[in-house]
């Protein structure tokens, strides 16, 4: 698979179809990958595709296309971000070539909690999860534990915007209903919910890793940085943090494709995906659209229908 990926990347670069291939290279540890901008055939040789390739590389597109057409390695879920960027005119279709990789699911680092990370030699896919090789042997981890939660509920096939497909998508049968976490949360009373977020937002240090890792957060100037307007100060008290995260959630309403990068990037373990998942569910329920599917569709909150649900319908 990696050979194919590298060949394809080299071909794209050599033929001049793109100036850059954004993909993954081996990270600083066997359970880590790092994003790579490959611009030469030699650099393309460094591309990898393995269970550590968790990042949603679409986040780089709005900047990268400024230097001309780029190719980007995407998982089917990441491709939804590309669709959103196209829909919102952040990138032109002609400037992006998507290289879709067949994805069995990617690594949840939490799965390695019991493994001595300093001793890990490699992380590979198996038929049913991953195999971790350490200095003292091999550990097999079943996919229920090995993969990110989003992978366990994923049933995506190849996206429509796939320009290059590196093999067939494995048939994925979701082992978890993605709505489950939301439904689980919604068993809480209003007070418990407020306490839940008070607890989590108290941890937030406002490093903005969530925002920076989000392909949807491409604003030139975030509301949180607008000092003149002062919607939100940088104080890290739970209420101010609530305001920041709630506003960010609303700004992503109908646009969040649930890649979970915000939550992965968060150094403080705030379950930010819950907000995105809820928005996704509500948008589908009320407006019958799913973000990330149709690049021609109008943005959910930038459009309307006369028959939209009404808070106080006329008799």
């Amino acid at each position, binding site marked *: 698979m990696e050979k194919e990926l590298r060949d394809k990347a080299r071909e794209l670069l050599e033929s001049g179809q793109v100036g850059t291939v954004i993909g993954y290279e081996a990270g600083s540890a066997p359970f880590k990958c790092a994003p790579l901008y490959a611009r030469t055939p030699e650099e393309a040789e460094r591309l990898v595709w393995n269970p550590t390739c968790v990042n949603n590389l679409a986040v780089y597109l709005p900047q990268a296309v400024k230097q001309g057409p780029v190719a980007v390695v995407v998982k089917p879920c990441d491709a939804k971000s590309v669709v959103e960027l196209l829909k919102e005119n952040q990138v032109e279709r002609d400037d992006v070539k998507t290289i879709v990789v067949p994805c069995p699911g990617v690594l949840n680092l939490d799965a390695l909690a019991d493994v001595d990370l300093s001793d890990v030699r490699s992380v590979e896919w198996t038929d049913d999860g991953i195999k971790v090789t350490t200095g003292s042997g091999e550990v097999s981890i079943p996919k229920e534990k090995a993969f990110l939660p989003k992978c366990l509920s994923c049933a995506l096939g190849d996206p429509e915007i796939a320009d290059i497909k590196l093999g067939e998508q494995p048939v994925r049968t979701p082992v978890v209903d993605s709505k489950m976490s939301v439904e689980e949360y*919604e068993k809480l009373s209003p007070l418990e*919910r407020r306490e839940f977020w008070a607890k989590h937002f108290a941890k937030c240090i406002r490093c903005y890793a969530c925002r920076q890792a989000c392909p949807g957060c491409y604003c030139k100037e975030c*509301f949180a940085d607008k000092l003149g307007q002062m919607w939100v100060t940088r104080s890290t008290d739970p209420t101010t943090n609530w*305001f920041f995260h709630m506003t960010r959630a609303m700004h992503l309403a109908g646009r969040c494709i649930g890649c979970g990068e915000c939550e992965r990037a968060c150094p403080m373990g705030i379950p930010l995906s819950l*907000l995105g998942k809820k*928005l996704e569910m*509500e948008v589908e329920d009320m407006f019958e659209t799913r973000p990330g599917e149709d690049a021609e569709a109008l943005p959910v*909150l930038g459009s309307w229908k006369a028959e939209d649900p009404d808070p106080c319908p006329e008799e």
Partner: protein
Amino acid sequence: MSDTAVTEQVETKETKPKEWEPKIIGFLCNWCTYAGADLAGSSRLKYPPNMRVVKVPCSGRVDPQFVMKAFERGFDGVLVSGCHPGDCHYAKGNYYARRRIMLFQRMLQFMGIEPERFHFDWISAAEGQKFAEVVEQFTEQVRKLGPFKGVTG
């Protein structure tokens, strides 16, 4: 109308009086609901004086941040109201508002803010009576819930 002009009004909430009274803020569309409020006043209809009114050009101007700011700053209830669907002065501002506010309403609820603290309604310039009723009803609804303890309280 700038964001700052709106926030200034949101932020001038006075300190709580000794006897607790619900503090409510209303974002009212200039063309319909605000005129409806005017009509209620000039028709000498009685309704509770708990609401501070912020006039906005259109319900479509209501950014969810206005509502969040109000809750963050400790208002006990927030009302948003504009022209009926189809009657928008700007043709479709309230349709955009409807989607945004509906979604926002559900998110507030998701975060544990009691849904009864936020009300969204259509009130036209002719509906002075309805305006008085909505304010009355909403104020009582918020009164029953008691003081708002904050978004994370």
